[in-house]
């Protein structure tokens, strides 16, 4: 594979002379390129180069502010739509690079691109604005609210968005949010999410150089931050971070007290299947199929990926039977969406998890472990006091429950890290259960079928995705 530039700089900001490794050129002092371990070209900045780039982005904010928010949504949506067209050049390059970059099989990579890009279309971005703001034009200037207040919303001068991990598309969704609230940004995508965000920035530059001038996508290995990484911490007036607790805590400690940080730390999602949903085999199988897809998509790496499923006893289909159905569906998906080979560490972790589980099952005399010999997928059903465990890849832990009404109590220990619950129950029980979970930490209740794909306007970890990026101004009479 050819060397891929792991960066997209504002149009007109001369790209570094890649033959002049790490030293920069006459026109761009202090900007250079080097190759990271994965064969990508990584741009490196010294103090002067970083300062030039950030000045440039800062200034671009003036131009961005003059564009109407509706117009922005349209322009951005045009670029996003390219990823939905299998013949488009950007889409093809994304498809070619994603499997290796994100550790996904090709079929899964295509499914992930389509699922993520659906939310980058014009229609969805306009809907996002409408869902987030009663009057989206508050982003263009002062507006009079329904109750007669004079208010406007602003997204700040310059943001730093920091991605971690290899769920593809997270960075692109993040940069779209920032541009929609008219805030120029530097996005550092996660190591497994470089391609889509760089390609999006390139596509944007083809459509509108002025808007593209407000965006820099730059990947650098976490272990070797450069001057840009340091300057961003002091100059960005909005920071958005996706990462584990350690990454978020470290970032928090490095930021000035006045810089707002929106942190999407790692979370755990789950499923719950009611006894009513297990009353007949065809419905139970339909749910098992949807659950298997949710488990499999993103190879368990997504914060929306269900890692454990609670099954209520008392249905016509016993938890053991449903576990077997789920296993069959996972086996089928292993054919449709073959996984990339697991890393040695993931394979080892799965092996140890299985061996330990088998010992517990043997000792307790109950429980079931079903998995393929290649360690690609595992269903583990253990009755008794639930062990709250997560395991890598396509592994799901099933916990039988006497009643789903126990859930609020069961979930209490995890409240700070919960996110999505796929709740398969008929109304009105679903609503009642969701109501009981209101204070549990769960921020999204959905179905297995929808679980992997929250809409762009979802309350991401409990907050509006655009509203959490803006600051309001009110002019009182």
């Amino acid at each position, binding site marked *: 594979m050819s060397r891929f530039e792991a960066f997209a700089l504002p149009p007109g900001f001369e790209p570094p002379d890649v033959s002049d490794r790490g030293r920069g050129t006459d026109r761009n002092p202090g900007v250079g390129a080097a190759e990271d371990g994965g064969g990508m070209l990584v741009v490196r900045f010294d103090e002067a180069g970083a300062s030039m780039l950030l000045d440039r982005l800062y200034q671009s904010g003036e131009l961005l502010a003059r564009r109407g928010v509706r117009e922005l949504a349209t322009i951005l949506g045009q670029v996003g739509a390219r990823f939905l067209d299998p013949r488009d050049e950007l889409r093809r390059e994304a498809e070619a690079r994603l499997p290796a970059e994100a*550790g996904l099989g090709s079929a899964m990579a295509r499914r992930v691109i389509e699922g993520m890009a659906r939310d980058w279309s014009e229609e969805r971005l306009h809907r996002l604005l409408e869902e987030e703001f009663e009057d989206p034009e508050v982003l263009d200037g002062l507006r009079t609210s329904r109750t007669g207040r004079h208010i406007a919303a602003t997204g700040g001068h310059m943001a730093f968005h920091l991605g*971690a*991990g*290899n*769920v593809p598309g*997270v960075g692109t969704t993040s940069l779209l949010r920032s541009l929609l609230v008219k805030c120029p940004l530097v996005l550092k995508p996660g*190591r*497994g999410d470089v391609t889509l965000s760089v390609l999006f920035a390139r596509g944007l530059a083809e459509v509108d150089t002025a808007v593209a001038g407000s965006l820099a996508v730059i990947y650098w290995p976490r272990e070797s931050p450069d001057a840009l990484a340091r300057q961003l911490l002091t100059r960005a007036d909005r920071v958005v971070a*996706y990462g*584990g*607790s*350690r990454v978020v805590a470290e970032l928090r400690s490095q930021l000035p007290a006045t810089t707002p940080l929106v942190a*999407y*730390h*790692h*979370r*755990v*999602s789950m499923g719950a299947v009611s006894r009513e949903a297990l009353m007949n085999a065809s419905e139970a199988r339909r749910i098992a199929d949807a659950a298997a897809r949710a488990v499999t998509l*993103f*190879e*368990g*790496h*997504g*914060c929306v*990926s269900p*890692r454990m499923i609670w099954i209520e006893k008392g249905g016509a289909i016993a938890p053991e039977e449903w576990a077997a159905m789920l296993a069959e569906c996972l086996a089928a998906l292993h054919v449709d969406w073959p996984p990339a080979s697991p890393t*040695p*560490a993931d*394979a*080892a*972790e*799965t*092996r*140890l998890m299985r*061996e*330990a589980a*088998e*010992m*517990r*099952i*043997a*000792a307790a*005399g109950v429980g079931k472990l079903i998995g393929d*010999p*290649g*360690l690609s997928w595992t269903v583990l059903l253990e009755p008794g006091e639930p062990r*709250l*465990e*997560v*395991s890598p890849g396509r592994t799901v832990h099933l916990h039988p429950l006497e009643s789903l009404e126990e859930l609020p109590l069961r979930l*209490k*220990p*995890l*409240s*700070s*890290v919960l996110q999505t619950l796929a709740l398969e129950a008929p109304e009105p029980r679903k609503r009642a259960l969701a109501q009981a979970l209101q204070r549990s930490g769960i921020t999204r209740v959905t179905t297995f079928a929808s679980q992997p794909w929250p809409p762009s306007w979802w309350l991401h970890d409990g907050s509006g995705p655009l509203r959490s990026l803006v600051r309001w101004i009110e002019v009182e009479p």
Partner: protein
Amino acid sequence: MNVLELEEERSELASALLAAMGEGADRIWSDDRFNALALRVLCYQARANPAYGALLRHRGIDPSRLTDWECAPWVPTRAFRELPLACTAPSPPEAIFRTSGTSMGGQTRGEHRVRDLSLYRASLLPTARRFLRPELDAPPASGPAAARREAGTIPGAHRAEPALRVLALTPSPSDLPDSSLVFMLGTLAEAWDDGGGGFFARPDWSLDIDALRKAIGQAQEEGQPVLIAGTAFAYVHWLDMVRSSWLPPLPWGSRALETGGYKGRSREVPRHELHREIASTHGIAPDHIVNEYGMTELLSQFYEPASWQGEPAEGESTGHLGPPWIRTRILAPVSLQSVRPGEVGLLAHFDLANLDSVSAVLTEDLGVQVQEGFRVLGRITGSEPRGCSLAMEDLLAARRQGL
């Protein structure tokens, strides 16, 4: 088989093992010898250890029909956190060693219930002697070493052993009775120390710098060779504390044992650098600094012997070696079969000294075969998750907050 018969079988096995260990850790055992003992141990554990017996039944394995110890089911170390893995015994265990709990965020600590500490002693002493004091088994020589050997011999030791003062950078066995490492160092001190050594960490593992400094000065004055022994993080703390000051070099014949990971307790230093720093700070010959690899779940240990003939090239490892009563396999995670030479796999050890718990132990360490031994590449757990989904470690941290 009734309880009495089981006890009789156990007693015969323990005697056989103690006798075999008494022959020394440098003996070479034939495959047949190891296999015969291992199969007997397996059969005993299948009957005496309820959890292991259940696993064998679950898999439909009749241990009495096994002909090869490698066909025994492996028990992952994490099972020591989840199940009682001791064989039934007529009396309470003599010790309960606990893991530090670092590998899974400290949720629960693994327990190794040790019925009979004499097996642990019988395993660790000859092994330590082989790798820490190889000159004792070398042909007699004349000169200062031989002269020193005459003085301060330990009564009842395997052979006339000159004293080696033990300065341990750990808490004392009375402060930390549930640490298998501390017990091991305590045993070495009982066997080798001349009465001048001690334990120089407080129960929270912080070092008593002044006392250690004083002990080193005293050993130097007396010309008494010492064994400094501690975890990698303790060495880093110690070396950081004394870097700016001068320490008298330790007497000729002194040596250092370094073990364990960092467990987040100090900055991490590559091993060869740490050994170089230990060598330069204490005036210990680089080939007298030895890494030990052990774990709470095993009563036998491995050592990476320095060549004792010269410093190995940087980064080059001679591999970890153990006594003949433990055998190691490097297993492919998918098949649980031995990997081809040079391939990375999970380290699995069959330790006969684990008579009273389980012998077939599958670790969480990845390793690779090196010469006669193996090199440890590191733990599989604790790596950063690669998505936005929660890692087990974060989940455990959240549970601690939420409970």
